[in-house]
């Protein structure tokens, strides 16, 4: 992938995020912007859909937080990603209750239907697949979530149907 440059992104969005967190150019106001790094990244990701590296470089220059520190945090937490995500995010639970009730079959069905593995996005940029430690919906196990909708008590076949339904809607 050719290196993207800052000019491709609307940096006023990042400016807005910094402002909302109360950051100002004045270094002497005692505000600890580095301490707010996680909410900062969360809001940037919300605004851009992911964390574009050029934006991170810009934010680093602006705030003085080293990009090394940013990447340290980004790679540590499963929530952050530096590549664009698909239009829909499908999350499969790999928690204990789901595992005990055959969650692996659901995961296999979804991966084979979409043709992508954990953490990948389909080539048409429609679907991203994520495995989640536990969705906390164990009573519904095995469970999967598409965007913010929970699908409980799945079977491999129903999981496939749910995915297919989204695929058709997009076609």
């Amino acid at each position, binding site marked *: 992938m050719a290196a993207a440059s800052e000019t491709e992104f609307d940096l006023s969005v990042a400016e807005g995020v910094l402002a909302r967190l109360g950051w100002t150019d004045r270094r002497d106001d005692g505000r600890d912007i580095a301490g707010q790094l*996680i909410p900062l990244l969360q809001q940037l990701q919300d605004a851009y859909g992911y964390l574009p590296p050029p934006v991170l470089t810009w934010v680093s220059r602006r705030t003085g937080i080293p990009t090394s520190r940013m990447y340290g*945090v980004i790679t540590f*937490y499963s*929530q952050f990603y530096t590549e664009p995500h698909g239009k829909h995010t499908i999350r499969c639970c790999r928690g*204990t*209750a789901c595992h*005990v009730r055959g969650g692996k079959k659901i995961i296999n069905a979804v991966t084979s239907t979409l043709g992508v593995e954990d953490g990948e996005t389909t080539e048409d940029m429609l679907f991203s697949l994520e495995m989640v430690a536990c969705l906390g919906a164990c009573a*519904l196990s095995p469970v999967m979530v598409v965007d913010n909708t929970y699908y409980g008590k799945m079977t491999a*076949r129903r999981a496939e149907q749910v995915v297919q339904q989204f695929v058709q809607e997009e076609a």
Partner: protein
Amino acid sequence: MGRFVSVKAFLDHQQQLSATLDPNAKIITICGGTGCTAFGSPNVRKAFETELEKRGVATDVSVKVTGCHGFCEKGPVVVILPSKVFYPNVQVEDVPRIVEKTVINNEVIDELLYVDPATKQKIAYDHEVPFYAKQTRLVFRLNGLLDPIDLDDYIAHDGYLAAVKALSEMTPDQVIDEVRDAGLRGRGGAGFPAGVKWGFCRKAPGDEKYLVCNADEGDPGAFMDRSVLEGTPHAVIEGMIIAAYAIGASHGIVYVRAEYPLAVCNTRVALEQARDAGLLGKNIVGTGFDFDIEIREGAGAFVCGEETALIASLEGKRGMPRARPPFPANEGYRGKPTNINNVETLANVPLIILKGKEWYQSIGTEGSKGTKIFALAGKVNNTGLVEVPMGTTLREIVFDIGGGIPKNRKFKAAQMGGPSGGCVPAQFLDLAIDYDSVQQIGAIMGSGGLIVMDENTCIVDIARFFIEFVQKESCGKCVPCRVGTRHMLDILTRICDGDGRVGDIEQLEELARMVKSASLCGLGQTAPNPVLSTIRYFRNEYEEHIREKWCRASVCEALVEAPCAHACPAGVNVPQYVGLIAENRLEEAVNVIRRRNPFISVCGRVCDAPCERRCRRADVDEPLAIRALKRYAMDNAADVAGPLVPPASGKKEVAIVGSGPAGLSCAYFLALMGRPSVVFETLSIPGGMLSVGIPEYRLPKQSLQADIDYIVSHGVELRTNACVENVAALRKEGYKAVFIGTGAHHGRALRIEGEDLDGVVDSLVFLRSRALGEPLRCGKRVAVIGGGNAAVDTARSALRLGAESVLILYRRTREEMPAYEEEIEEALREGIELHELVAPKRIIGADGRVTGIEMVRMRLGDADESGRRRPVPIEGSKFVVECDMVVPAIGQRASTEALAGTVKLIPSSGIVVDKATGATSMEGVFAGGDCVSGGETVVAAIGAGQKAAVAIDRMLGGSGMLPADVQISMRRPSEDDLEKILPRVEEPMLAVEQRRGSFAEVLCGLTPGAACAEAGRCLRCDLERLESLAAREKVTENE
């Protein structure tokens, strides 16, 4: 409502609200928890609102979306107030009926009610549903009642009274004393006393202190914190205000998982409301106390549940823990004194302040006070959130509240405490659970995740699952955790893949000890717990994976082609022959079975069918009737009498002692590999227990004979009336190998007074004498003692022999009886009386003959090693049962007379063998069947004979190759059939009135139509696996 500027203003408002609470108000409460939302509660809510509008009653009846009711399994859950009528699984189309009948006319709609799976009774009111009735809901008391984001609703139900009381009437030290004396322990996992923790933070020097509510509930399988925050966020906020006041904190943070959007949203709204009402911020209700709370969303890292890692995360760093001390109470967030409590802990605090420590102390056990919320999930009927007093037993939680295990499968273990905890096996079902007792048995209370596992859960797979989880979540800071868990995962993965090595278990244990003792934080220190506890209680399952490549639960993919075939001790290719039956290719089906099992007629009738217990069709509706299909194929195949291979010829180098299923199978499989043998049988007829143990109404003589004839046709020499005096002598006679399959034909004695009276006959003697046509006097009133198949066979035989009444006396209950359930059912239908919970004390006689038996009543006590409850005698409950015949059927003993001075024996159980080969301690001598196990199933004996045949062939220079399995039926059910609920077929039975006085077979076999349809239900797991293997290969090729 404005801002409360004084305590009085708040109390006035509170009183006003609470006075307007109308206990007779008509309210429709709909659960708005994540579970019910997923099942469609938002649409149900809309439907109710529309319907009320339509009927013009919208002003009289209100609709309220509440927090989680806990019974997620049955969502969407609707409760109609004030009557408390409870409707589970409510669908939009049910709404008009509910409004018309229940809401307006106060009628209960029968067909929408909850049906208790245990009693099949319909239950109308929520407090009568066993799931709720047996709980003590304190923290959850308001969850199904309140609108989570309605502050007044919370205040009306005594909300914020505790906070205002603490702030206005108590000093911080008094608050700390109250909570400490109440005995509240941290609900996040470790169980540290909350009051003590507060005390540390209060005493720590510094004027800036922080209070953190840990809602980073990352423990897979726990979801109570989510539910509490979603349902009653104000209760958590109130707990935080009290805690902050106690320790002197002015700033609070709720650290909540981003994966919990509803919890984040409700908490955010509740904070806003509390702030607007003056319950947060500067000068709270005019008391002069300042405190505010912000929300931080966790970015997805399990380790951030650890205090120091959580603090690092709050500070915008990688969530890595650090060494303690200094403890967060002295140096926490931003280096300031910080107190971190879990959501559930904080939600308990207002209750303690409001109701007092004495009240709180009265709930729970000596060392653990109050209630605990468990997230009940996994293989249990009623999944959901369960709040019970500390000290409740696992049996009460899993069986009384949880409704037991689906499909009546066996409870294997419960995983408590998630990846940091351990498994609790069946023997501890009656242990009173609190922090300390759970720790003693190698698990932890943890946050309260409780995953139930049944017999179809593989314990090694579970251990691998947890290690994989912690390995992924290990932050990587310290080597023991980062590298140690990696090595443990590698070993566990290879065991599950069938590549385990001898010594792996020991290496796992050593690594586990190292990781435990040398890791920096709680994650690493507890990560090996699931492995250690599963090895501790289920070491045999690890060994089976390593040595026999066998996964008893049929879970580990690399080992299992199809669960049914894997579960069969004889390794019969079940899906293949079922597919052939569906295509009406019966001869081929029979031949597929015969590659691994010569006793088709027998196993088609009396097999305990372990295959059916693993059948995946059960996940759709019910397991396939595999046993009935097997019988159908054999009974209806046109020409299957001839041998599978030409009869073996040549010198007979193998002697087989005993012609039961083990011995004849061994002879048969040797013949398939070209080796003839001689089978010695002491009795006049062959078949062992099959002919002298199982009565003809279950296994007709001609069916058994057909199987034996078939075996003999392979060049097997059968010598009846040929008693082998000594096994060692056979070796001297020139037999290069000997297989012992002498069975277990001796009954166990009762060891009570009167056993020598005339009329006391052991059940095995009784059944054998009858089968051989020896003189046998059957009593008029027969008492059979025991609960196994021999007991039921004896009882049903006695009835057929003309006994006027037959009783089965059993010391436990029907549920614990080892006999097949369908046999018990038929015995009862035939008029046999079952007396549960009674044990014999002495047999009473007159003139040397039995006249009765003195019994004592029993009750069920705590679990034994298998999880069955031990019978305990009830003092002073003796009574006499009159009878003229007593038949003890309490167990059997291996027949080992011919073995004196030869192979190694365990006196009370049987011959000692290598499980994989059947080899005994004496060279060239093998053994299998009941003489090894002391009494097992037919198909287990067949499998043992088969294994020994393979080992003998190899010993004698052969390849040990059984005829290859060929894939010939590719028939699969259609996609539509996969979804349809198709009930399992049942075999027709002989009418009950025709059974007395006759030994005619009871089960009548399937009709062609029924058999074909039944076989068509098979999911063909074997083909599915083939396909996925092929797909994987294709992917590899493409890459």
